[in-house]
């Protein structure tokens, strides 16, 4: 029960950091070798050598953050925000060092006057550290992954 509660709180915090645009704090949730991965279809087992919507280590995350924070990132100028809801949190595996968790998310995005909805499943591999959990892998299987994208995704879902 304790692990369940801690893991849930961690996932909520992850979503909260995205919604509040605290990009650096969000990147800090990852281990040094952590990866954020959004495969284009659920059958993919690895991001290595595969097309991916996102397949980012911390360095690429820094590039993305640097871009959106730059004053000349034109697409960042207009009103833009997201709201995540994370639920259905299930611990799949747990060992002394690591927890594997599956959950579901729903993300609503507002950009100018347009609303978009993205939803799907998160799979997290969380490393237990002295400072709390850190993300080794955040896999995002979006139900919309295969659909045509009306505009693009600018930051992590």
């Amino acid at each position, binding site marked *: 029960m304790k692990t369940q509660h801690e893991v849930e709180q961690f996932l909520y915090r992850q979503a909260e950091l995205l919604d509040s645009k605290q990009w650096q704090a969000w990147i800090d949730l990852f281990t040094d070798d952590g990866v954020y991965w959004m495969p284009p279809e659920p059958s993919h087992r690895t991001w290595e050598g595969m097309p991916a919507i996102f397949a980012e280590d911390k360095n690429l995350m820094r590039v993305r953050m640097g871009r959106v924070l730059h004053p000349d990132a034109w697409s960042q100028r207009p009103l833009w925000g997201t709201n995540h809801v994370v639920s259905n949190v299930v611990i799949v595996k747990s060992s002394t060092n690591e927890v594997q968790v599956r959950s579901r998310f729903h993300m609503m995005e507002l950009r100018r006057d347009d609303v978009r909805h993205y939803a799907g499943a998160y799979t997290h591999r969380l490393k237990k550290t002295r400072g709390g959990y850190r993300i080794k892998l955040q896999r995002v299987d979006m139900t919309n992954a295969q659909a045509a994208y009306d505009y*693009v995704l600018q930051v992590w879902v």
Partner: protein
Amino acid sequence: MLQERIPDFSKFVEPDRVRKEVYTDAGVFEREMERIHETLWIYCGHESQVPKAGDYYAVQLGRQPMLMVRGPEGKVHVLYNRCPHRGNMMCGDRHGNTGEFFRCSYHAWTFHHDGRLRNIPMMESGYQGTRYGRDNPECSMKRAARVESYRGFVFASLAKDGPTLKEFLGASLVAFDDMCDRAPEGEVEIVPNCFRIIQHSNWKIFLENQLDALHPSVTHQSTGRAAHEVEKMIEKKTGKAPLSYHMLSAFATVTIDKWDNFQTINHPQGHCILTGYMGLRPKDPDTLKYEKTLIKAYGQKRMEEILGVNIHHVLIYPGLSVQSPLQQLRAVRPLGVDRTLTEIWHFRLKGAPEAIYRRSLAYYNLVNSPATVVNADDLENFWKCHQGLSSDGGDWVSFARHFGRDIEKDGVVESGPGMGTSEAPMRNQMKAWARYMGNGK
């Protein structure tokens, strides 16, 4: 009557500027679909998308929903996705395998892969004495008027008459030659993943941006700077940053004046070749290994020729942007006057080392995925562009940059030396556009 309402499109286009209606008028769009996208050779897909008999891909040519399908004899056909009975769409999926024949989900009419009628349930009792039956070609699925392929890239034209595919592609054939020649086996194979992104803007805005060498350092400066910072950090730590960082940081490190070193070569069909070395031949072990496999396949001299081709990308009018050195392409499908779908694919060089594929994959993921760190700002500009053009704030779009300094020879227009940011490609595209749109001339 209708003819009278069609405006004189040549009046929309002047040598150095065009009317805003070219981008925003719904009537113009319909005419474009008829005269351009449903007449010229349009890219359907690559043969390796449909390797087995019955494999199909749905593709939109102009306003027409079509199917590209592989027949049992190995031939690739392009058919209208429509049952001749009551007009039902034959396949509702984007791709799949139709089995040994197409079967309509409404009344079970069946068709061979080349569209010929196979059977109508109870044909004898139901259709005896009517105009319908096996001998009537109207009982078959309609085929694209013409289908041809070049080095595995399949095109269709919905017009009976016109130049052959090779005649139409002309100098832009180099896009497919450059891509395939880079493969030790002389062929490429599709990676079965299509990223599809919708732009809220007219299709021509995308075409123009593809050849606009002035925009990268303005539009993509934020990405260039961010990538350059991280690139420097990695170099400091490990000595060498992956090539993909260089591809991104170039947006900032190649300053506006340097983009003038690029050159555009514009052809009368509307095609354009943007030259400019992409820095894809570093002296790293992966590249050297790749060079060895090319030498084995073609010899030293030919290898040097192949890797020396100086192309950034090729724009094939009216809607295919091919980045041959990185084996990717974007197909443009106009959905409406202010909505455009791009379908983005990449390829493997057959026989090349995995590391070379990884290079094109990195570009595909970073630049061309729906989470692109590059095109987000392009699409923002396209939307703003279309919004502005829809207003009464002005009537014209200017293409005057380096106007009068183009070098023209035998109908081919090159941007002047050191004038790579010339708006020659836009002027040339619009000249071709006016000719295609011409009132029956």
